[in-house]
């Protein structure tokens, strides 16, 4: 089946009940109508769909998701902040938590608001980076999204502090589903750091469906970090998509630790010359977790560069999918593209499906890709044990060492430290 037939949640009915939100905005209203029609036609993809070959949405379809909170959620964000000093928006169970947020004293040229408070401006950028027809969650998200973050940085503005979004599923309402849309617009020659964390209470067993659309004007530079650390019973489907004008840079780091089923689609369109994208990825999965990262980079014009490193650590019965597509379009001469996916398997029961894909339609390019799957090196393990480290710590240390170069690339030192801490706690069989 190309389409998942059995979906227990009536998402379309929820969309109808949310229509009141969009009443005043014609553009959004039109988009939502289109999305509803699209969703009714295609629903969610089945495994015959090429991009969903290794990820079955069957169990997600079986869930009865809830879209009304039964009791107000609460989250202690103290432990979730990755940097102290930031402009911060906190969303708990789909609603902005203003007391936990900090949006005071925004400098001139910077807009940071909840999506729901900037509908008219944000709507101008809606669905520019995502396509309703694409098999996946774009239609669902477009017809249901009702919150998120809106960031706009004016031309020639360098934002002085990171902008942090923390999204929490509190677990207070069972099977609670959130549909969020983030819109980030960077003007000419501007610079910003955006950190997004998705977290949840251990009992949270809902759905986070989020799309982050990014538009980078000439010479704009966005440092972008995503940390997904939701509960192991939670579903997470996300798209991060950017269009990049000349000389712009998008440095994306995508770390997945949580979720029962997590899917990321990361997409950059390099539309202007000398634009560059970095895609760093790390996934640490265990138990029955399933993580799927689909990345795509379009080199559309000459003289663009991309650098992609995705690393995975798999334990127990976990399953990971990596699909990295790099497309060098006709005329995109002097493209320089590098991609690698490396995986460390810690148990016999885990599975990785890795597929680097390069489609090259230009003839003067420098492109390389590779993927590797390996295990803990026994000589290294023995060496560490011969120096007195117990086997568990030694394995943990070697696992961390495998992942560390993704972390090393984080340029913000405070962020690097806090992400290191989060990852150390999540290392298989305890910290080093």
């Amino acid at each position, binding site marked *: 089946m190309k389409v998942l037939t059995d979906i227990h949640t009536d998402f379309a009915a929820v969309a109808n009940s949310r229509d009141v939100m969009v009443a005043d905005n014609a553009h959004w209203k039109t988009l939502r109508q289109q999305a509803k029609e699209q969703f009714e036609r295609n629903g969610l993809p089945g495994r015959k769909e090429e991009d969903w070959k290794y990820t079955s949405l069957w169990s997600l379809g079986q869930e009865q998701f809830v879209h009304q909170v039964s009791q107000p959620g609460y989250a202690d964000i103290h432990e979730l902040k990755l940097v102290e000093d930031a402009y911060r928006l906190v969303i708990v169970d789909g609603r902005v938590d203003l007391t936990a947020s900090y949006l005071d004293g925004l400098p001139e040229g910077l807009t940071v608001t909840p999506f729901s408070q900037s509908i008219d401006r944000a709507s101008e950028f809606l669905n520019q980076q995502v396509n309703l027809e694409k098999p996946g969650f774009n239609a669902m998200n477009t017809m249901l999204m009702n919150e998120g973050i809106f960031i706009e940085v004016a031309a020639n503005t360098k934002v002085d502090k990171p902008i942090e979004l923390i999204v929490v599923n509190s677990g207070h309402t069972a099977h609670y589903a959130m549909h969020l849309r983030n819109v980030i617009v960077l003007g000419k020659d501007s610079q910003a750091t955006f950190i997004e964390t998705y977290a949840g209470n251990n009992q949270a067993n809902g759905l986070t469906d989020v799309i982050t659309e990014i538009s980078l004007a000439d010479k704009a530079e966005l440092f972008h970090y995503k940390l997904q650390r939701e509960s192991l019973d939670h579903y997470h489907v996300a798209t991060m998509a950017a269009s990049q004008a000349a000389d712009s840079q998008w440095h994306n780091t995508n770390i997945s630790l949580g979720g029962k089923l997590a899917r990321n689609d990361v997409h950059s369109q390099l539309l202007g010359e000398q634009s560059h994208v970095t895609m760093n990825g790390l996934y640490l999965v265990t138990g029955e977790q399933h993580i799927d990262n689909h990345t795509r980079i379009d080199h559309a014009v000459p003289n663009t560069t991309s650098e992609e490193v995705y690393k995975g650590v798999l334990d127990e019965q976990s399953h990971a999918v990596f699909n990295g597509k790099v497309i060098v379009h006709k005329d995109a001469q002097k493209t320089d593209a590098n991609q690698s996916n490396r995986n460390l398997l810690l148990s016999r029961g885990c599975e990785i499906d890795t597929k680097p894909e390069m489609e090259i339609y230009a003839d003067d390019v420098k492109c390389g890709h590779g993927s590797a799957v390996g295990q803990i090196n026994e*000589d290294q393990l023995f060496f560490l044990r*011969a120096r*007195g480290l117990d086997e568990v710590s030694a394995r943990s240390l070697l696992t961390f060492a*495998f*992942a560390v170069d993704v972390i090393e690339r984080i340029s913000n030192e405070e962020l690097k430290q806090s992400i290191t801490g989060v990852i150390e706690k999540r290392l298989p069989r305890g910290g080093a």
Partner: protein
Amino acid sequence: MKMLEIKNLHAKIEGKEILRGINLTVNEGEVHAIMGPNGAGKSTLSNVLTGREGYEITQGEVIYKGENLLELEPEERARRGVFLAFQYPVEIPGVSNIYLLKAALNAVRKHQGLDELDAIDFLTLVRSKMQLVKMDEQFLHRSVNEGFSGGEKKRNEILQMALLEPQLAIMDETDSGLDIDALKTVSEGVNALRSPERSFVMITHYQRLLDYIVPDFVHVLSEGRIVKSGDKELAKELEKSGYSWVHDAPEPEGQPA
């Protein structure tokens, strides 16, 4: 006092018997050299003593300070003071040297019931040990052995030994891959660590190392047995006449053929 006692040790790897009845006693403060041709079982002996997996002990026992060494995990041996200086020190990208040194020292200290050293005391200690092997401080912050030259790797081994202050150091072909300057530095490091409480077992193919680290005893290993023992003069004899004669040596007394 006896530090190490190897009694009639037999060991197999992949079904093939490599050690065929080794007997050796090492007392506190003694330096023993074990020499032998390729394939004599030298590396197997060091691997068995330090607990590498893949070896099957079919007979015999090894007593280290009154304990059955072969029953201990590699890390338990290390914490009790057995140190292996590797023939081929492994590179570990992503683990800094200083992290390794700290983790190793703390593992030993914890076993001894001591607190972890604080950052300043630790650094002071490491610096003093680095002088011993003439290592530059930049090596602390590099990944373990990654991109090190052969000599730097071996010096790094001696640095670890100096820091951990083992009771029994087993040195596996420490001279291999060293030029003469590196050999001198490494030997000076080892000699500085010699003490009445510390014993060394040096496994080596060549006599060269023994010019710098002078052993109390020299043993010749051949086909899985010690076929001859003597003092440092034996090593010189070997240097002159090679190993060909050892194959003709009679079976040692008391050993099954």
